[in-house]
């Protein structure tokens, strides 16, 4: 029983970071309406950046967020401006190929720069734990979880209270009407893509102290983010958050009770099952999901 609670806690903490990654994806999907196959690669870039900052400049991974987040914001804007925007009106197939091309290019760029090694960073607190009632809580996971919660809270406030946030929700609701109301949609897409990428990047920086980064890591996180997003209901922010926690739990439980090597296989199976049995997700979909293949 104690083991089970232990597994639950550690899964939940991990799930917070997954929620952050998936909310980044949901934001981009909900507003820009593009399925970005290179989403995990954005996270991979952030992880390598964090790694490099730590190794070459001894910057603490949590501190490095102030560099990683703006950097990823710019990368995201660049992707939107130079890769997505030119093909925005072409068919869904073309969008798949462009983002798949981006995914291949970035993955292999990482292979060129960092080789195929598994890398992580050594911090003084990487192994430290807190004991609460017989349950030990990993400190880096706890920090990551709290960090993620604060950021998610911030994002929700941004969407609810600020003008930019309201404009984003308006575009997500109806692009054409939003444009008629004077919202500069193209510019908003840039901001949204940047913001979603920055969230994803922060998730990468938070994960690095207790996971590894390697060139193909992005593909796993892309699928993971989509598992979460589909589970939570495509385009549904709160759903993405709950879905993230849920997948964290699943990963943790299957890692202990089935096999660590099969934990990804388990949630891919859940992914396929969700698509089949309840494609609208556990918490209902947002707008516009029929465009990308959920009837």
């Amino acid at each position, binding site marked *: 029983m104690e083991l089970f609670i232990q597994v639950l806690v550690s899964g939940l903490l991990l799930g917070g970071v997954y929620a952050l990654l998936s909310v980044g994806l949901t934001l981009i999907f909900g507003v820009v309406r593009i*399925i970005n196959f290179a989403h995990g690669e954005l996270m991979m870039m952030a992880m390598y950046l964090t790694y490099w900052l730590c190794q070459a400049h001894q910057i603490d991974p949590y501190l490095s967020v102030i560099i990683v987040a703006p950097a990823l914001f710019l990368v995201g804007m660049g992707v939107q401006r130079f890769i997505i925007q030119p093909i925005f009106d072409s068919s869904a197939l073309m969008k798949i190929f462009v983002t*798949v*091309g981006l995914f291949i290019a970035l993955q292999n*760029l990482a*292979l060129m720069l960092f080789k195929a090694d598994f890398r992580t960073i050594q911090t003084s607190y990487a192994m430290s734990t807190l004991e609460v009632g017989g349950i030990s809580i990993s400190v880096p996971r706890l920090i990551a979880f709290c960090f993620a919660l604060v950021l998610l809270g911030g994002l929700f406030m941004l969407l609810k209270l600020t003008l930019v946030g309201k404009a984003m929700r308006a575009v997500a609701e109806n692009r054409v009407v939003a444009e008629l109301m004077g919202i500069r949609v193209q510019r908003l897409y840039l901001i949204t893509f940047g913001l979603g990428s920055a969230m994803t990047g922060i998730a990468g920086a938070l994960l690095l102290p207790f996971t590894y980064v390697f060139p193909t890591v992005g593909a796993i996180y892309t*699928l993971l983010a989509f598992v979460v997003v589909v589970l939570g209901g495509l385009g549904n922010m709160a759903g993405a958050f709950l879905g993230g926690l849920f997948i964290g739990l699943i990963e943790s439980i299957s890692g202990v009770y089935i096999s660590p090597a099969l934990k990804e296989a388990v949630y*891919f199976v859940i992914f396929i099952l969700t698509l089949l049995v309840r494609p609208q997700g556990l918490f209902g979909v947002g707008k516009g999901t029929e465009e990308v293949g959920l009837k």
Partner: protein
Amino acid sequence: MKQRHLLMALAAGLLVLPIFYSAPYFLHLVIMIFFYIALTEAWNILALCGKVSLGHAAFFGLAAYTSAILCIKKGVTPWIGLFPALLVTFIGAAALAIPLLRLRGPMFTLASIAFAEVLRRVAMVWRDLTAGAEGLTIPFVPGWQNLTFTTKIPYYYIFLILAAGSVYIVHRLYYSATGHHLRAIASDEEAAQALGINTQKTQLIALFWSAGITGLLGVFYTQYVYMIEPEWAFSSALFCLQPALNGIIGGLGTVWGPVIGSVLMTPLGEYLRSYLGALQQGLNFFVYGLVLIGVVMVLPGGIVSPLLSLFKRWTPSKAPALDQGGKVR
């Protein structure tokens, strides 16, 4: 009928080619071109109805493992082993059929990636059967029975037949009623259904042809390389992304696009792999990714359509024998 003469001349040339020039490296390159023509044509069948699969490595790996395990552990010749291999592939296809029928666009693509990924991980973990990451080695007993040879010439002809056969199958399919239905589904699934096309049955036909050819290639290609391991058999780069890349560069949803794409991309790939890959690991695929982005932006119909207009200018035949390179929406 000029085009038919051209095809016959090409076939005759390919049949006698190894007699005149049979340097192993050259033959290997041509075998790889044939392999990718067949694989891209198989992948293309599903693209005809507008569905992009990035999970075809699943079919390849399932068939390859079935026949390899039967060959190694039970001594079953691949000629017999290919039947259970195809059976297992079709079971896999039946599993992928559900997302195929229920999802469209990027969501089907994602489900197909996850499908191949699950199988790869299972192959890694199921050590009793697959020996995990160490892989299995096909015993080297030269002869037709074991499909292993001391020269590359038999494989040249095997893959020539597979390539020609798959082009023929896609050609027949393309101009059949099913082919028209597939293209109707690609342009508008609801409209196709409203016109009375059985869209589910049509897509299943496409899926099973596509999976079957891919599985067959898995059986023969594994015998050709003598060994099998999960990272290779379920490799998304080799068996999912490469045919997709060949297909889009040649021209999506056309009969000859995959041929042109494979003929162009395979030597380029081998060149990039041996020169750029040696220079810097990953550089070759980095270039590939950029090529893919560039082609989609500059030539979204692939290079078949501009080539075809040139071809038609040179050969003023009225027969509309070749298809238009196309928009698949």
